């Protein structure tokens, strides 16, 4: 799965992620943390969408459920360390339930069913004031501590989130390298063939949703503690669509796609701030151009270059052969 060059690039990136943030201002650290949280959520979505090929447009609902579980539990006086597993397990179970429509409907219908689910969750968040605080949300959510080490500081919390991202990244990598991972891709590439080869299509479809949802739940829990405030706005259908966009832009079905995709979705709009009121306009145009340039996502670029180089050398070989023959 990883070449030597890939390993080197990975180590360099990791070193940068560890070394750069201490030199950044508060807002920079905040953005890095925000990015890492989206990486976690989008890794989950990449499993559902990119590997298992299930069109899910309701990922922000799980993200929100995770955030609200932690917020509500911490408000009630429980520890973050209770909220986090509740968020993960809760989202896993609800993800299983949301996966059921996927057994009946596919492609675009599934996308709309999950989108409907997202709207429903959002409506509950907005309207059930007694539980969620309605549009005012819940504020004053604390940050966790572990073995007496507090992660109150922004930089400390960043490393905390980064550690989560790395562990979850490793787990997903192991999962995908296992026979399970192969089953997921088989499901995406040809569900009927997968079924006839003995893959339990139902179980894997449900699992791809549930595991993806659990990742989003953990990401949401981390988000609640980062912003220390939850409200329904970041968990709308629009947010789900943005997450889908990030996964597809990064390269669905590429392991590291969510890293790049989240960077485009979270950091690019910030870099474009110089365009002031126009920055989202520029972002939208950039998304269109990126898709036109690399329809299979940013990470398909190396493959594209390799294919082009191969085509060129083949053409050269043909020319030589033609000359020798003629």
């Amino acid at each position, binding site marked *: 799965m990883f070449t030597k060059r890939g390993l080197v690039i990975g180590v360099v990136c990791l070193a940068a992620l560890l070394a750069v943030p201490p030199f950044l201002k508060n807002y920079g650290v905040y953005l890095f943390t925000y990015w890492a949280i989206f990486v976690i959520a989008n890794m989950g979505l990449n499993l559902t969408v990119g590997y298992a090929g299930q069109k899910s447009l309701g990922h922000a609902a799980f993200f929100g459920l995770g955030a609200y579980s932690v917020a509500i539990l911490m408000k009630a006086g429980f520890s973050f360390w209770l909220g986090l597993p509740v968020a993960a397990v809760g989202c896993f179970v609800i993800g299983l339930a949301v996966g059921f429509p996927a057994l009946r409907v596919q492609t675009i219908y599934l996308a709309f069913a999950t989108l409907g689910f997202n709207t429903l969750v959002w409506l509950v968040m907005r309207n059930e004031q007694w539980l969620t605080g309605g549009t005012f949300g819940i504020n004053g959510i604390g940050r966790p501590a572990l073995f007496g080490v507090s992660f109150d500081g922004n930089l400390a919390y960043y490393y905390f989130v980064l550690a989560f991202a790395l562990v979850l990244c490793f787990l997903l990598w192991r999962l995908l390298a296992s026979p399970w991972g192969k089953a997921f891709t088989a499901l995406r590439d040809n569900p009927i063939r997968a079924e006839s080869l003995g893959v339990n299509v139902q179980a894997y479809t449900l699992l791809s949703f549930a595991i993806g949802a659990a990742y989003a739940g953990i990401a949401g829990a981390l988000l609640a503690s980062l912003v220390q405030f939850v409200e329904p706005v970041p968990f709308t259908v629009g947010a789900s669509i943005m997450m889908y*966009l990030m996964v597809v832009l990064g390269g669905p079905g590429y392991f590291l796609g969510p890293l790049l995709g989240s960077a485009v979705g979270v950091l690019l709009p910030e870099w474009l701030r110089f365009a002031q009121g126009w920055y989202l306009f520029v972002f939208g145009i950039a998304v269109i151009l990126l898709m036109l340039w690399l*329809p299979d996502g940013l990470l398909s670029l190396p493959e594209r270059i390799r294919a082009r180089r191969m085509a060129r050398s083949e053409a050269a070989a043909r020319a030589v052969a033609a000359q020798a023959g003629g």
Partner: protein
Amino acid sequence: MSDFLQLFLSGLATGSIYAVAALGFTLLWQASGTINFAQGEFVMLPAFIMLGFMSFGAPLALSFVLTCVVAVVLLGWCFKRGIVDPLLKFGMMPIIVATIGLAIAMRSGIRAGVSAEAQPFPSVFADKLFNIGGVTVTLADVGTLAVALVLVLATQAFLSRTVTGRAMQAVAQNTDSATVLGIDVPRMVFYTFALNALLACAAALLVTPAYLAKFDMGESLGLKAFFAAIIGGFTNSRGALLGGLIVGVSENLAAAYISPAYKDAVALFIFMLVILFKPEGLLGKKVERKV
């Protein structure tokens, strides 16, 4: 009872606008397999183009005609050539994401370039009330419903009665056979895109007086159009009409009788039921899966 009828009628009026937007959406899907996530913005933009023409002193009717021309070029031709054509062969995901990007760009472009505030928009219909058997109805409601119905039925008639329309349907049903039969497929697909742009202009003309022209007006409109298209049946043009009316009426009644906060939930509920139990839509035909 009269309250109920009033709500029902204004629901029908709103729903018929959703139907117009949904119709364009299903046509695009049928003809080219394009899922347009910018469908709501395709209604929002013409509203602002009309306002632009009117600010130069053009009357509403002239602005509408000019806007139709601009929309066919911009939202029909440019959209097809610039985004759909190059991406179609890569499957559904890239087009979805590109149209999301387009929606973001259009929304924020209008916000930054024109205005972030809601703009008033003149109504085609005079501000008049009728009283029919104790039920008060506005001319705008009745007029909107009538115009939208005529539009949907005219589109239907065009698709099923004219040679061009039938050729467009042939392309939608089976592109390969249509090619073999000598139908100019790319041209028919372009016609569909043009038709979608025209329907969007009409929807803009009808919806904006009530909703006001605002950069984000397309967001909820687009979502409602999706719901309508799915409920009615994605593969059937008449489905869009039925779906639109169901969504419009149900949200109006829910707002009055259940709770305004859950206004959108009823349409959503119907939508979920349809998705789960009859995913091909109320009027749609089932598509068997292929190996």
